[in-house]
Structures are given as structure tokens and as C-alpha cells.
């Protein structure tokens, strides 16, 4: 190999790596690249078919994006997450709630005590629908776009930081 080319090689490698990092940072800002996230196999797929007391999968395809939040009255992190959901409601972001393995009376008590952040509410008492959605527990939140495609899955309680840094950039993109 030509000596000059050999001496240029380190620069080339550094430039390639730098370009890659640039792309990653740009992706992180747009929310398309998340090195931390554990991917949900459902992202980019259509929501699973279901029919629950409250609403069914066809109701979720509204032409506009929305959030689907799995919660339960017996779950302590859900209480922690609750104010964030109330904030989202104030920002006119519709959150569709699905109560997971919860007695209807208990769910109603929970909402009466803490306030109702939900646009509409469905009840998944046997917890089967949650399995189809691939949740591992509660609370978990999904972003579903206007065509019923799942865009984002967050398997922890929402925090204001997550909303600002992860959810809102995506929301602006799909809205």
C-alpha cells in the first residue's frame, strides 16, 4: 500500500467514527435512536386486536395519535406516575387507560381519589389483552399513531423527563 494512503488511514477511521457518532446524537435528539431502550417487538406493528368493556382496538384508530396506558389501582408506581398523566391531559394529549387485573370498583375508587387523567377507560380484568400488548407489568405506556401503529413503548412509570426528552419529540413527529 502507498505510504501516504497508510498515513491517511487513521484520519479516515476517525472521520468515519465521528460521522457515526454524529448520526447517533442527531438520532437521539429526534428520538429515532435510543441506545438505552430495550426494543419492543411491537414497535412499528399494528396494535393487537382486542375488545374490552370500554373500547376495542378499532376505537384506537382515530386518525390522530394517542397514548395507551396500562395501570392498576393496586400498583404503587402508578400512583407515582399519575401526576404526569394529569399533566398530559392538560396538554390535550389523549391518554386511553386500560385497567389491568383490577376490580372495577377499585379502579373507580383510584380515579375518584387521584383524579381522572383518561380520555377513555377500558377494563382488562383477566389481563389477557395486556399479554397481547407485550407488557411485563404496570404501568406501561404506548404511543399509537393515527393509523393504529405502535410507535413507542415505555415499560416504566412516566416521569416529566421521559415525557420531555423521549415522548414529546416523537409526539411532535407523529402529530
Amino acid at each position, binding site marked *: 500500500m502507498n505510504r501516504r494512503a497508510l498515513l491517511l488511514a*487513521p484520519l479516515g477511521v476517525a472521520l468515519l467514527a465521528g460521522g457515526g457518532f454524529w448520526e447517533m446524537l442527531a438520532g437521539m435528539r429526534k428520538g429515532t435512536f435510543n*441506545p438505552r431502550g430495550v426494543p419492543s417487538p411491537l414497535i412499528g406493528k399494528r396494535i393487537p386486536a382486542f375488545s374490552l368493556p370500554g373500547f376495542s382496538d378499532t376505537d384506537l384508530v382515530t386518525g390522530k395519535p394517542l397514548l395507551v396506558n396500562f395501570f392498576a389501582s393496586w400498583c404503587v408506581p402508578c400512583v407515582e406516575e399519575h401526576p404526569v398523566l394529569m399533566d398530559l391531559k392538560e396538554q390535550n394529549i389523549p391518554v386511553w387507560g386500560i385497567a389491568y387485573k383490577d376490580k372495577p370498583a377499585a379502579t373507580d375508587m383510584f380515579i375518584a381519589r387521584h383524579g381522572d387523567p383518561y380520555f377513555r377507560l377500558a377494563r382488562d380484568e383477566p389481563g389477557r389483552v395486556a399479554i397481547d400488548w407485550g407488557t411485563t407489568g404496570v404501568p406501561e405506556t404506548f404511543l399509537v399513531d393515527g393509523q393504529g401503529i405502535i410507535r413507542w413503548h415505555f415499560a416504566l412509570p412516566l416521569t416529566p423527563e421521559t415525557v420531555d426528552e423521549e415522548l414529546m419529540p416523537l409526539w411532535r413527529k407523529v402529530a
Partner: protein
Amino acid sequence: MIPELGHFALALAVAIAVGQAALPLWGAYRRDARLIAAAPALAIGQFIALATAFGCLIWSSVTDDFSVRNIAENSHSLKPLLYKITGVWGDHEGSILLWCFILAICGAAVATFGRNLPSSLRARVIGVLGATACGFELFALLASNPFLRLWPPPIDGRDMNPLLQDPGLAFHPPILYIGYVGFAVPFAFAVAALLEGRIDAAWGRWVRPWTLGAWCCLTGGIALGSWWSYYILGWGGFWFWDPVENASLLPWLTGTALLHSAIVVEKREALKTWTVLLAIGTFSLSLSGTFLVRSGILNSVHSFANDPTRGVFILGLLALVIGGSLLLFAFRAPVLASSGLFAPISREGALVLNNILLCSIAAVVITGTMYPLFADLLFGQKISVGAPFFNATVLPLAVPVFGAMSIGPVLSWKRAALGPALIRLWWAALAALAVGLIASLRARALPALCFGASAWMIFGALAELVERIRLFRVPFRGSIARLAGLPRATYGAMLAHAGLGVTIAGIAGMSLAADTISLVKPGDAVQLAGYEFRLLDLRDGLGSNYTSRIADVRVSRDGREIATLSPSRRTFTTQTMTTTEAAIHTNGIRDLYVVLGDERDGAAVLRLHDNTFAPWIWFGALIMAAGGGLSLLDRRLRIGAPVRASRVLAAAE
């Protein structure tokens, strides 16, 4: 007032850095003696400005000035004084300021101790350091300013991450940063040499002490970090191949290679281009490590205060520093002609082998660390690369390094014969074989091999000493005279090589470790590896900013009490976070390690470890760093010594 003073000092430092970058470099290019002479004063001015800024930040932290955002977010009035001081560099803004401060110390050190450098070389080195400092100080000032005020000030601060409130971690960042940033000096020397278009033996002699100093601190910093994760994270492990750990290991590997190739430049005037590239590469890896940790790109337990916007700024800086220097390298490196020729079997040959192997290990570690990120970016695949990959790829490369480490130093320069060198090491080889065989009775094959390798390194270093003083071959008195006459650098190298042997023995020993988890009621006992651990009591304790739950565990062997250990769990009230404080009893050869887990129905979960040879891991790293320090004290490397000696001679005449 004080924070504003610090803010002003930081801005002043940027202004001085611009001058420090521009004037000496321009002066050296135009051969303007006045501009060249301005370099040291600018470097010292830079140091004073940053020392003021740093001092102001510490002052604000110690006096609990919560109107400073950075302190409100990371401090608390109840935090112990030590952590108020060390907490200054516990967060992103403060650590960047520390980074800049250390860079300024390096510049001032070159200005002060570099009096015997040719003035244009010194001006260029200081100029390059100034240009680097300028970028990072701008970053501190514009994108992560630690002096920004907060209005209205909160009544009390949000407190620091409790995991960081630990003496081991308090001093980990400064030592590690001195290591990282210290490599800026060899980098500046390399860039200055490219600008000058000349590298000679003297260049190698000037670069070595700086490299050595940075290397010692990096070794110490890595060891301290690993020790911290050993005793505070409470998993009983010491190295997790975590991306942030790898980011510190990479400059260490290439820095070690640089240390050895600089010897070849000094003694034989060969490998010049390669050494310059290594110097640039080592600092580039240090910088990239800082960048990757801060940008949030790397997924790690260690990352803090990460933010993609800051990442873009740092990436731009890296592009300038690394890209610029590599571009310069591509165009100017052909000027650096090497003159020394040597045979493959020679001291130089061994050092080249060392370089090839160390850089291969570095390449493997880079690949393992970066591959998941790039696979995610390019192919959208989520994969994780963990310990099995690193263990399987690093070890086959490390074993030849261990093998060559004892042989290299006994080879002669230029041309050597392998046979006689090996004959001189016969008893070290025999001892290594014996240790390996004994170890294979209890350990699996790989650890046994490592035990053998570590014995080879330790006895090899000893054999080199015996060889050099011609023990048993010349009269004993002659040997003693030779012992006293050996240069400190030789002792330092032997010590460092033996130190690595000790560390490797410690790592291999971890494979013999035994552990158990059990639910124990007060008064009950658990047996592990011949020791009896009896839970005496569970009690509550109170610290200055935490409450703790403490277990008292009496350890005994054959009815003889050895120690009472008190592992605890601390709950920090402000941040509602719990940390585990493992209790460790060490006798220098094995660690008995107890962690307190959850409690249920009056019983507590205790995790017990018996870690044979574990303390040797850090003990060996200390020996390595001490070896580096001893080399640094060598007369030949003592900066300024030749000048003083020649002045004394001139005065005598």
C-alpha cells in the same frame, strides 16, 4: 459575588487560552523570539485564572451557596465537608472545570519544568495545549457553566448521588483525570514535533516522563474505580467490561504502548512515526472516553448528566482536536525519517511486539465497546457485548504479552539471541511451571495458566535483577555495588512488570472465589469455605445525612474469632436512595466479604464471599503505579537535571 468572580476567571482563562494558542504557534512559525518567550507566561496565567475559578467553585460549595444552580442540584447543607469539596467534581459541570484545570496545570508544568527544552519546541507544545484548553474552556463557559445562578435560591440543595458519597470515589475522578489529561502533554509534544518536522532522541527523552506521569495516574485511577465498584456496588466483582470502564482502559493500553515505544525513540531513534501516532491516538481515546460518557451514547451504570446537545458540542471539539492532529499527521509524518535499524530478535523487537499486542487488545476492546452502538445505528439491531466476548478475545492476546514481558528486558539492543536469554530465565520458567501446576490442582485450566503467567512475570522481574547484578557470578560485594548503581528506571520497569504479575494473580484468584446467599436469624451461623459467619445483631445507625441498618457478623475459623464485620445498608433521606456498604476483612491474601440484603420476619439476607487473592488486584496496580513513579525519579528523566549538571561542570571549570 464569589461565583461571579469564578465566572469571570473562567472567561479570562478562555481569553488567555486564545492568546496561548495563537501567539507561541505564530511566533514559532515566524521565528519571532518575543512571541516565543511569551509562551510560559501565558501558560502560567492560564493556570492562575483556572485555579481561581476552581477555588471559587469550591468556596461556593463549602459555604452552601445554593443560589448557584450547580451546587443546589448536587449539594446539601448536611453533606459532610469532605463531600462538599469533592462533590464539586462529582457532577458534569464541575468535572469539566476540573478537566480544564488539570490541563492548565499541565501547561504550567511544561512552562516551569521545560526550561531545558528548545524554546521553539516548548512554545509549540504550550501553544498546542493552549488550543486544546481553549476549546474545552469554551465548552465549560458556554455549554456547561458551573457558575450559573438560580433564582429564587432553594432553601436546601438536592444532594449528591449517595453512591458517589464515598472516599474511594471522591478521589477517583481527579486521579483518573490527571491520567486522561496528562496524555495531552505527549499529544502536544507529538503535534509540536510534526510542526517542527523533527524528532530525535531528545524528543523521546522529554516525552517519556510526561507519559509516565500520566500513565501512573491512569493506572491508579482505574484501580481506584475498580476497587470502588468492588466494595460499594456489592456484587463481589471488580471489572464489568462496562463501556465506561473500557473507555478508561483504552488510553491505558495505548498509553502503555506509547511508554514503551518512546523508549525506542530515545535509545534507537526508530519507530518515530508510530510513536507520534500513538501519542495522538492515546489522547484521542482519552478525549473520546470523556465524550462518550457525557453524551449519553454509552449505556452504563456510570453515566451521569448526559445530554445530546452537549454531546454535539464535544463532538465538534473532538473533530477539531483529533481530526486536525491526524490531518497534520497524514501530511507531515513522512518528514520524520527513522534512522535506527534492528533485528526482529532484539530489545526493540520485543518492544515492537509489545506495541502490536497492546494495540491489538485495544482494537478488540474498542470493537466490543462500539459494535453494539454501530450495529444499532447501521442495522437497527440491538445486541449487547459482554464479559464472555472480552474474556475470550483479550486473554489470547494478553498471554503472549505476559510471556514476552519477562524476556524483553533481558534481550540486548539491536540484535540479540533468544536462546541465551531464555537460559538466563530458566529458574523463573521453572517456578512459573510449578506455580501453574500447583494451581491446576484447584483451579480450572485458564486461571491456572494465568497463575503460571503471573509467577513468570514476578520471577522474571526478579531474574532480570539477578542477571543485572550478576548475583553469584561476581563476588557478592560487586553485586551489591551493581545493585546500588542500577538506574531507577530499571527498578521501576521491574517493579511495574512484577506489579502486573501480582494483579494477574489476583484476577486469576477470583476464579477460586466462593459465595453463598442465605437468610439468617440473629444468633444463627453460616459456613463458607471453612469459615463460620455468625449473625450477632441487627441494629439501626445514624449518619450525618443518612440512616443505616447494620448487621454485626462474627467471623471465626475452628472456633477462633477472626473479625467482626458490620455490613450496612444506608438510606439517604434527601435522595431516597439506598446504598449497600459491604464489609470486608482482608488478611492480604483473601478477602472475606459480607453484604447485608433485605430483611424478612426478623431474619436478614446475608451474601457472603470468600475471595482468594482479591486484594492482590489493587495491590498489584499500586505496585505498577509505584514502579512508574520510581522510573519518574530516574536521574536521566529528571527534567532539568542535565542542565544543572552541565552548569555545575561549567562552574567547576
